[in-house]
């Protein structure tokens, strides 16, 4: 202890140490290894050797641009959809939930006590060709007689939206819940209409929640592969499916590693653009 008293600058370092060690061991070291792997060449049969094989990156981008674009597209739609669905929902809970607030929040989270895989498989049943949903939509002629929902883009994007909803809803709730109701009263005292008060007061104050929710939804959604695998066809496969099959089925580690880096880099770029547009102070609240 006396050491810390004598060298006060040590204290923050010591406090940071567990986090830094965690990051170093479980993030930086594997990342470094992945980078090393992404520059290897060879085949699984003969083994892989490190040869500064930068063409892995070129192949990753040119060979799978379709899946990359699709991943960002699906993740983007799903993020907007989760926002549109969860905003009114948590708005109501935060301002009108009263003593039911916690109960209602629990209900949002409740389906997530079931594992990811089972939840997604449940959607297979809900959207099944001979299931009630498709049957109803056929009866009301929204779908043609042989139309279907399962194994379509709609199913995949819906699956992602559903699976990531709490990641949007919870941060949104936190920021909406903190809004001081007196600010809204003040706005109305100053002759703001309800709409205007929402647009000028509530929405800006909930922006940190929107930003946090967007990031928490978009980033993992862009790398998701379960929804495309279970609810889609090869025409809906995302970059996560490619990486998964390269790693586990083709056992092509260099290509899989290069693809992972490309995905990471693209997400970083998207993040920087996003931060520039909305302003960095909103990222931290």
């Amino acid at each position, binding site marked *: 202890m006396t050491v810390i008293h004598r060298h006060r600058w040590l204290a923050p370092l010591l406090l940071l140490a567990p986090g830094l060690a965690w990051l170093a061991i479980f993030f930086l070291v594997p990342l470094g290894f992945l980078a090393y792997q992404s520059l290897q060449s060879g*085949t699984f*049969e003969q083994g892989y050797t490190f040869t500064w094989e930068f063409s892995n990156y070129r192949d990753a981008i040119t060979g799978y641009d379709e899946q990359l674009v699709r991943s960002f597209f699906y993740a983007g739609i799903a993020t907007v959809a989760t926002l549109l669905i969860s905003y009114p929902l948590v708005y109501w809970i935060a301002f009108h939930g009263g003593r039911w607030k916690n109960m209602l929040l629990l209900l949002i989270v409740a389906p997530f006590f079931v594992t990811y895989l089972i939840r997604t498989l449940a959607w297979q049943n809900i959207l*099944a060709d001979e299931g009630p949903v498709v049957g109803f939509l056929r009866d009301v002629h929204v779908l043609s007689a042989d139309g279907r929902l399962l194994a379509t883009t709609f199913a995949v994007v819906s699956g992602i939206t559903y699976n990531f909803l709490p990641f949007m809803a919870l941060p949104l709730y936190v920021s909406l819940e903190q809004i001081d109701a007196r600010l809204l009263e003040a706005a109305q005292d100053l002759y703001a209409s309800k709409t205007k008060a929402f647009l000028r007061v509530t929405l800006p104050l909930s922006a940190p929640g929107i930003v946090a929710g967007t990031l928490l939804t978009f980033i993992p959604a862009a790398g998701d592969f379960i929804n495309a695998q279970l609810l889609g*066809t090869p*025409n809906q496969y995302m970059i996560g499916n490619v990486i998964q099959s390269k790693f586990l*089925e*083709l056992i092509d580690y260099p290509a899989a590693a290069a693809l992972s880096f490309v995905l990471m880099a693209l997400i970083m770029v998207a993040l920087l653009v996003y931060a520039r547009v909305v302003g960095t102070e909103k990222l931290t609240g």
Partner: protein
Amino acid sequence: MTDLTRLELLRRAALGGAALSIPGLLAACGGDGEESAGTTTGASAALASTLRFSNWQLYIDRDPKNKKRSPSLEQFTAKTGTKVDYVEDVNDNATYFGKIQGPLSQGRGIDRDLIVMTDNSRFPGLLVSKEWVEKLDKERIPNMANLIDAQKSPPFDPDRNYSVPWLSGITGIATNMKASGGAVVTTMQQLLEDPKLKGKVTLLTEVADTMSPIMLENGDDPSNVTDESWNKAYDRIQKAVDGGQIRRFTGNDYVADLERGNIAAALSWSGDVATGLAANKALRWNLPKQGSDIWTDNMFIPLEGSVPTASEYMNFVLDPKVAAMIAVGAGYISAVKGVKEEAVKLDPESANNPLIFPDDEILSNVVQFDSAALNNQTYIEQWQQLLGA
């Protein structure tokens, strides 16, 4: 410890029955956990208490009254005292190999004593050449002599030092008549091009099983693949995928979608419809008109698996009586001599099922896929691209 206690047991036995009191027996056997079960006979002393066995779905005999029980596995337990932890976790060869190759490549076991992989994939060859499998204890497998000649020397393991065949099967087309609008699908052309089936077709992730029937329909020979015949078949599938005809590429998991009617027709393995799905009257299974491929699944002992236990089990299933139970129960073709005679006693109807005991007409319509093509790096990559990744 085991030897000592056995020695002690013998000594006490020599003193005469009276000396072998029950407390004495308990004392002799007690105290060394797992091994104690096998102290009575020399041959089973080294057997593990549990055989951990990874196999494919719908691939063993089941008690019709209780699908969780398998009579043949129970017989093995009764005979040897070794329980079987039977896990149906192989869905397709590539995915399963992907799962197990991590530990194996580091020389570690995978908590299994037996795994089953198909000879029409490149993985049996890889398991042997990378030395990721244990050598069989052939002294425990005298029934190896019962193997049919065609299975005595496969290219991936010419002396059968590492593997024993499980069952063989044929790839065909399964139709769910309800979902297909009453039409039976019997050609690859229907499967790949019939607009009525659009989006309701699955193909198999196994390259040999999907390519063979298409090549045969194209008039090409799947047992001797050329770039030309490969590309011709490949382009046909690509077109069907792009046009939205193909719903998915699957392993055993086509079964659930087919039963539910989400898919109308699927490339399917011969036994699946004959047995596991027999209850569903809407299902039909046909060999494609121009023929298809035949393949054989093989049992291997992965690194650190119990060689004596697994070898003992291999010997057990090479017994024609047991082999007949499994073949009839699973609906697939056995590689053991004398199985048909045993099957007649067991279930005369199945003994006449040409999918389990193929006649010459069927055998003249099926081929084995080119093993060189399985290891062609370009084909491997192209195939993976086609699967959507």
